[in-house]
């Protein structure tokens, strides 16, 4: 399967995503510089974590205007898979490919630590290898991870089963204490209506090898691979 990893100036998790996809999961990846205007044909695009344009002004605010984003949008509209991790999630929100915005953590601190998130729906190409309600241990690493959207939007997300991950306790409870950044309703990740675009704040690529403390994050990539197989089985 072919992954395109979009590299903005200031991105820094592109090599980690590449490492996991190639060395842990044996897939092909290419790094795509943000100034590209056309994309090769990729099964899945990844917008990695980091600090695109230094996070200046607002996270993702400037990156969304990068030349490559028009191609990313076309890929998404065509139903192609797009995974935004951390800063990538912030870019997707600014670009309008996902609803809402990510604001400064209520702790007023950058936070790098393991958290627990609960899979709220397995009905996405990114979670179909998980079971609904499954608790994953995956690290976060952000200063602006507080998910916000107006009530109507949040209601719609819930109604359409678009809330994909919530911050929970190790036991699976979405308590306030389990919410590291003040996100609305403990929301850690959402998908679009077409369910082919996912954004999440936690870093699955940092939890893909037991050696590093958790391999739960591998499930997201495994899901993508599985959905690709079923897709190719059923002719488009």
């Amino acid at each position, binding site marked *: 399967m072919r992954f395109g990893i979009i590299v903005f*100036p*200031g991105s*820094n*998790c592109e*090599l*980690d995503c590449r*490492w*996991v996809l190639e*060395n842990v999961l044996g897939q092909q990846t290419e790094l795509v*510089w943000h*100034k590209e205007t056309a994309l090769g044909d990729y099964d899945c695009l990844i917008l990695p974590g*980091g*600090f695109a*344009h*230094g*996070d*200046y002004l607002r996270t993702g605010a400037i990156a969304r205007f990068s030349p490559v984003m028009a191609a990313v949008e076309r890929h998404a509209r065509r139903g192609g898979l797009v995974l935004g991790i951390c800063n990538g999630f912030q870019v997707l929100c600014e670009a309008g490919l996902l609803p809402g915005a990510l604001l400064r953590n209520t702790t*007023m*601190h*950058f*936070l*790098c*630590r393991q958290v627990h998130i609960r899979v709220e729906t397995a009905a996405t190409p990114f979670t179909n290898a998980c079971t609904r309600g499954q608790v994953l241990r995956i*690290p976060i*690493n952000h*200063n602006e991870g507080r998910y916000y959207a107006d009530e109507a939007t949040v209601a719609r997300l819930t109604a359409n089963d678009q809330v994909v991950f919530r911050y929970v306790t190790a036991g699976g409870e979405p308590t306030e204490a389990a919410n590291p950044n003040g996100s609305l309703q403990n929301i850690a990740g959402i998908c679009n209506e077409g369910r082919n675009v996912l954004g999440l704040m936690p*870093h699955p*690529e*940092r939890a*893909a*090898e037991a*050696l*590093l403390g958790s391999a739960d994050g591998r499930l997201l990539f495994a899901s993508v691979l599985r959905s690709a197989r079923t897709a190719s089985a059923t002719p488009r």
Partner: protein
Amino acid sequence: MNAMVEPAVTDALIAAHSLTREEYDRVVVILGRAPTYTELGIFSVMWSEHCSYKSSKVHLQTFPTSGPRILQGPGENAGVVDLGDGLAAVFKVESHNHPSYIEPYQGAATGVGGIIRDIFTMGARPIALLDSLRFGPLHEARNRYLMGGVVGGISGYGNAVGVPTVGGEVLFADCYSHNPLVNVLCLGMAQADKLFFGRAGGIGNPVFYVGAKTGRDGIHGATMASETFDERSEERRPTVQVGDPFREKLLIEACLELMRTDALVGIQDMGAAGLTCSSCEMASRGGTGVEVDVRLVPRREEGMTPYEVMLSESQERMLLVARRGTEEVVRGIFARYDLDAVVVGRVTGDGLMRVRDGSRIVAEIPVKGLVAEAPVYRRPTVRPAWQDEVQRLDLDAIPLPRDYGAALCRLLASPSIACKATVWEQYDHMLFVNTVVGPGADAVVLRLKGAEGGIALAMDGNGRYTFLDPFIGGVIAVAEAARNVVVSGAEPVAVTNCLNFGDPTRPEIMWQFTEAVRGMAAACQALQTPVTGGNVSFYNETTGKAIFPTPIVGMLGVLGHISHATTPAWKAAGDLVVLLGESREDLGGSEYLQVCHGMIQGRPPTVDLETERRIQRCCLEAIRAGVVRSAHDCSEGGLAVALAEGCITDPDRPIGVEVSVPGMLRPDALLFGETQSRIVVSLREADLGRLQAIADRHGVPVTALGRTGGSRFVCRGRTYHIDLSLAVLDQAWRGSLSAFFRHR
């Protein structure tokens, strides 16, 4: 100010440039005439303590600097260590104490930026940072402000520039209230056969200026770092620089990309004394001359004089020499990252540093004169009159604690010992997915992608020990750093260091310095860990009051196999807990004396380096043989604290312990004394025989203390008894620092 009129060089002006009469006369001899204003500025920064090491040079030369693994010792931008498989580790530590006191956030941030540039200058990708910090007591709001700002700056810059801060240390003492220490270590990975050096070679080759534009930032920063603080420091504030981690990230990528071409001849970061220092150091190393035209330098501000352009310390700038004819290659790569890349001069054969302002020559100085002929001082030293006084310690006058459990909790809650999670959680410590053992253990352990092995890094330096006995303090800084690396499963191989001291023109300070260096050199010799580089920060004084002499050691270790990575936390209930080494009555200079008795007194524990070496060999062999499941050295707080940390450092798996500590010593010494060369390990009962055999071979005493298990910390002796729930220990240890910063 009009670029054409420069102030006349008067005695007042010379003094303002902190050049002594003798130094000025030397300048006149070197030039064969009086210097111009610009030349005066250039000499003053190049001959500042910060750039010239004039007071420390002769002593640093006593460090062992060579060994089978050392590819590059002191003298370049950073040291280089051979890791095998064609891999090389590039590492160095740098201080930014003075700027961080003046503006904690930006001071610390630009310190991080500076040390990172030293590393990728060598052709290495920076993959890890460690920070060694010292502050005054946190009950003072000003110290909380300083610490919050410094940690914020390291977090803000380090995270955004994309280099994880994987470890470090923070210690607290009154003497740092008006002079905090901010030492940052950076590690990079390079191919051993693809290293780059700061040499200006090839007469006629173009000299490129790349990176951010030049403003009036930090002019005289270098001389500032070489002066004692006083009330007037406030006035120097405008020299503060602002860091731009985004631009530095682009600079890293652009330079590493350029290094994959064949265009690059030499490259050097613009750090202290900016364009001046970088250009003449490159010429000096290359045995050439350099000519630059300040008119061509990209600027951020109007009307800058040649003097300002040459001395500006604007951040995120590099100077590089390219092969003639490759100009377009260089410009192309930097354009891709939207960075300036401008030819500002060329390499010459005349051995001169020539600065033009268009057609006008504003400085013309023999490079040899600036660098090789810089003043070197063997400053007078005197053992302070008060040294005997602070070493005197009458144990009989010190009452035993009524409640040993309470004493233990006070130690665990002492900010120097307490959990530093509130600090390291603000740092991205996972980027590059190498962090096998992150902050919170004795050393950090990183895997080497594509290789079997890994590397370990620790930073250590106990200023209180060094204050009480500079020689022993120097020895322990090295020995403990090596021990921290060993208990993590690695073999210590090389050292970088940062020497933080007071005013070297005071004989007492200079004595502390020479003694500490003597101790460090002896330890590096004995432990076979050569010094590959470092940094000296003098004048850490405010209004005549010096900090504790504080040598900080950064130790690099190598793991043959990543599976050797070991942590302090117990791994399972029912394991045996064993002490390697012997406890003596070492209360002098201990955290216990300070925390429980308010005393900074006595002689710090002495170290027999042969014993130290044997215990380290023993522990490492036991780890490699898979005999021990956890290992933790005894440092601040002694055996009791080490045992408590074994129970609680793993937040997901607290495991209790039940031990009794045999011995004839007074109980507080037994529990809280800081005898060196001791390591606590835990192991399966079945493996005790194998451990014993290994220990016997190394002549290391083994004492079985007890067993892991349960949810309490139980420690019994003839005359004392501690029985505490892990929740209580955890609250004391984990809750302490965060309480000080709750309002934030």
